[in-house]
């Protein structure tokens, strides 16, 4: 009986977390142009409409373009920064790391308006460029905080050994250090990409007129009701991510098992 209560508790929390997602999935099959609470019959036409609506396609394109460029730039700048930070004196390192933490702990809206004001102050007109710059700024800490611990674990000895054996600094970095810190680099990249795709507040404040990402497009429709094709697109994205994650979990699980088998023999 006590155990049933516990399972019920865990179940209710996860029901709470997944109920809106279920709702959105159902709504993307609802035969009504915008989201309402009323069921008007089953249709698949919103999935077709995704490809016919220019505003949605453009927002999707912008979202992915911004996320891709921002996370790639943040990863490159971030990894380079980590190598540099490693070489710093303890005191400078501390200051830099504290500054790195600011965007992480600061309220999003404060980061957003602070960037907006800076653009205004220097007369930079808002557009794709300002969104990109802002996204790179808030992605960088995720790269640094994931790569730096890995770099610390690696230490300088492997790098120095490679140098002693005649490798150029660039070669030593790419063939000795980088493979070692790769898990941190890829986590940092993926987190940056995710954060950028999911971002609303910072994009909302730093975008120019007429530029939409999926988040800002959704927000602009919240009063009148979201177009059902937008729900359909989100359902597709969600299921796609679910599929990727499941495959990854399954593959990693199998690799893990084969490795233990090998280790056992």
């Amino acid at each position, binding site marked *: 009986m006590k155990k049933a209560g516990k399972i019920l508790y865990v179940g209710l929390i996860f029901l709470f977390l997944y109920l809106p997602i279920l709702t959105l999935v159902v709504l993307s099959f609802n035969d009504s142009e915008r989201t309402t609470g009323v069921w008007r019959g089953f249709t698949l036409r919103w999935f077709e409409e995704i490809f016919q609506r220019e505003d949605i396609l453009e927002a999707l394109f912008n979202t992915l373009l911004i996320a891709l460029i921002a996370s790639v730039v943040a990863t490159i*700048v971030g990894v380079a920064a980590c190598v540099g930070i490693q070489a710093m004196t303890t005191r400078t390192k501390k200051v830099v790391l504290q500054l790195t933490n600011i965007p992480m702990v600061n309220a999003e809206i404060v980061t957003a308006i602070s960037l907006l004001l800076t653009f205004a102050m220097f007369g930079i007109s808002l557009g794709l460029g300002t969104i990109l710059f802002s996204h790179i700024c808030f992605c960088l800490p995720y790269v640094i905080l994931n790569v730096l611990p890995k770099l610390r674990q690696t230490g300088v000895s492997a790098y120095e050994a490679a140098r002693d054996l005649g490798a150029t600094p660039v070669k030593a970095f790419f063939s000795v250090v980088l493979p070692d810190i790769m898990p941190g680099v890829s986590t940092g990249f993926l987190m940056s990409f995710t954060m950028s795709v999911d971002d609303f507040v910072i994009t909302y404040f730093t975008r120019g007129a007429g530029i939409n990402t999926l988040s800002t497009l959704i927000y602009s429709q919240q009063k009148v009701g979201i177009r059902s094709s937008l729900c359909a697109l989100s359902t597709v994205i969600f299921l796609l991510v679910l599929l990727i994650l499941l495959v990854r979990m399954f593959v990693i699980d199998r690799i893990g098992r084969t490795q233990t088998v090998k280790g056992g023999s």
Partner: protein
Amino acid sequence: MSKNKLLSGPYLLFILCGTVIPLLAILYYALVDKNGSFTLRNIASVAEPVHLKALGLSLLLAFICTVICLLLAFPLGLLLRKSGGKNKGFVIFMLILPMWMNFLLRTIAWKVLLQKTGVINSILAALGISNGINIINTPYAVVLGMVYDFLPFMILPIYNVMIKIDNSLVEAAYDLGASSFKVMKDVLLPLSMPGIISGITMTFVPAMTTFAISQILGGGNIYLIGNIIELEFLHGGSRNVGSGLSMVMMVFILISMALLNKFDKNGEGTVI
């Protein structure tokens, strides 16, 4: 090796232009008027009834949201801890997965669910409860939205810390005759403190500063400090007043965090 330092150059430039100068920009705009001369009026504008009410409501709702999240997440952490570390990957997967649906859409889904003629009330009506719940466009709906959006950020750090607690400590406490309540209060709670503290931070700050959740679930009637700042910046208000209010908001966040840290130290004290 010292040449390597140069590699952090581009990043330092990003910190300078993307963090340091922007924060100074808020400070500057908060302290000048439209014509650029010094004034304290922007900061003092927090005393206007509308602003004061919004700030108070933000603090209150964020506090309630944080408490509810904590009350939901702590027992969940205890239960999941008992199920052992073998499910860890799956649990974290289940907690992170919802974040792959846009958070605005998930919040809007609650609007659909909570409508007077919405799904929840239809189910309640079918069960014979005719009154239903009418919380849409009230602060209750906003709190529900906040709890929904930020609960994973409370659960994850608590769960991460709890799963690392050595079970032999718990067993030792039981062996020494502690009741299960005492084990929770004197062993599990203090050891979970780091997770609880980061959970509170990750819940309170976004809840206190949100404007989207209150806009969507408050139906435009509920003004949190975030909504006021948004109005000042994007809908024809004054950037200077917006900056002044942001400064005040940051001060309140810093005070809250300082109080929290003090509490944290007390917590650590009891461990020793």
